[in-house]
């Protein structure tokens, strides 16, 4: 399938100084789930605001389904859906009324509107909630309704800004299922932002790691993880006067070893990327012990997206 979103050098500068988005170029294919992975304040939402026509780029451009965000905003509005990070609903009305309200702004009316509203209520299993005031809903039900309102116009592309922010794990898994179903059954292209690694790992085909308004790495999720190779051995050292020296010394000794693929300093010590974690662990211990280096802890884990993030940004995303 072809490319449906292509952004080139999107930049947003606020008040002439603050660069919220600093030259983002990204390409999303029709039918995929694409993710922006990055911490809060990294420019994910601002990029979304430009792509969904809410905000004009300071410079740069993007083409969405053949339409230019700088010229054809009205055309783009018809074919996209946008789910925001906040509540995004009229709390003083019922769920059904909220859906109708959005439907009418898309100029859907009469029988067609009723049909679409019923369809969405059924799809998101909101039957028992639809006629209650939204203010009485739980967070999970609200989010389901909110996503439903952004689908009223049968969009080709759905933008989900932090879809499961602040929701508990059960609700998140449930929302992931809906997202995947929308993508698979109806072929909706989904572009989401998240700072949850599991979410990016579970849902996305491709993702872009974004930090301080820039994309630091783009790629297929599996490929990105493979790039990290095998396992991660995390060493931490006691925070005393020898801390920096220990890190430097260990790095020097270990760099020559054949099992080592990569090595990165962390806040508390070192991360060693190795092929075979289980058999390497004793070797590492022996080498360090032989050189008189004391470690505080040693742990072994499979490489995750967090390590991908760490490798490319020097920071951990985990919150």
């Amino acid at each position: 399938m072809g490319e449906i979103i292509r952004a080139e050098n999107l930049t947003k500068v606020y008040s002439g100084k603050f660069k919220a988005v600093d030259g983002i170029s990204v390409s999303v294919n029709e039918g995929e789930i694409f993710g922006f992975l990055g911490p809060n304040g990294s420019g994910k939402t601002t990029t979304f605001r430009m792509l969904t026509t809410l905000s004009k780029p300071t410079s740069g451009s993007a083409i969405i389904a053949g339409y230019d965000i700088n010229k054809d905003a009205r055309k783009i509005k018809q074919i996209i859906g946008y789910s925001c990070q906040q509540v995004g609903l009229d709390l003083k009305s019922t769920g059904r009324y909220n859906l109708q309200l959005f439907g009418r702004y898309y100029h859907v009316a009469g029988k067609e509107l009723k049909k679409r509203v019923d369809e969405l209520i059924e799809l998101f299993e909101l039957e028992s909630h639809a006629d209650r005031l939204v203010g009485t809903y739980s967070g999970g039900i609200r989010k389901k309704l909110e996503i439903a309102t952004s689908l009223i116009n049968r969009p080709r592309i759905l933008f989900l800004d932090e879809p499961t922010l602040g929701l508990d794990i059960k609700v998140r898994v449930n929302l992931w299922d809906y997202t995947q179903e929308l993508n698979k059954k109806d072929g909706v292209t989904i572009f989401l932002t998240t700072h949850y690694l599991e979410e990016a790992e579970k849902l996305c085909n491709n993702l872009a790691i974004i930090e301080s308004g820039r994309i630091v790495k783009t790629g297929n999720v599996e490929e990105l993880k493979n790039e990290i190779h095998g396992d991660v051995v995390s060493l931490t050292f006691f925070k005393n006067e020898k801390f920096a020296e220990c890190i430097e010394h260990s790095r020097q000794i270990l760099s020559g070893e054949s099992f080592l693929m990569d090595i990165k300093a962390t806040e508390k010590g070192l991360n060693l990327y190795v092929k075979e974690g289980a058999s390497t662990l004793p070797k590492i211990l022996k080498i360090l012990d032989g050189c008189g280096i004391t470690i505080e802890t040693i742990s072994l884990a499979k490489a995750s997206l967090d390590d991908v993030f760490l490798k490319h940004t020097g920071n951990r995303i985990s919150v």
Partner: protein
Amino acid sequence: MTFLSDISNTFGRFLRSEIRTPQIVIFSLAQPLFWLLLFGQLFEKMVNVPGISTSNYISFLAPGVMVMIVLYSSTYGGMSIVDDISSGLLDKFLVTPANRTAFVIGSLLASLVSLSAQILVVFGAASLMGLEMETGIAGVFLTMFFVGLLSFGIAGLSKALALATKNAQPVVIIGSFVTMPLIFLSGALMPLETAPDWIQTAAKFNPIEYTVKAVRYLVIGNGSLNDFIPSILVLTAFAVFGVAIATLAFRKATN
């Protein structure tokens, strides 16, 4: 066509939310009654003051109470938009193809409905207290027209302020700061004839004064068409200005 449907959709939403809150309906209708009774008693002897061209103070006071209602209800008209901004609802509306000006006009029209109900309450209660509407039912409709224009102007400014600051607080602070001076720099409660020159000059720039004047002519029935022309011009300009600045702020706030 879609422009009108966007207006009616917005109008419907705001009207619903007002009707769904009975406390607001009750208080907004009780407030003009309360003012009418309070000021009516307090200033009863004012009919002897030069400049009150009627022997019945209620006829003089009722138009003043009407503009006070407009001021108090429209000054805070921007607050609903602040809620919609912080809840993310406004962004979601703006992603739809709906017309932006329709959001502003629809919400202004909705506040006109409750305002009209309040004005009718004043007319009803004041009639019981001795007001005689010299220009009859046509005068009541014309009153709605002038009051509506004033409300568009003030609510428009309030919305613009709310949109520019994205915060309810400045709306409350500035709103309550300007309300009283605007009332006393007009002939709403006291005839301006006896006021110092500078107040009379200031009143010439006060849209409240133009509304009070026009409505008072309608109530007392002593105005000629020429007396209405300045009010029509000033208030129409003020209403257009209000809607324009709110729309402009709306466009700016959403970029």
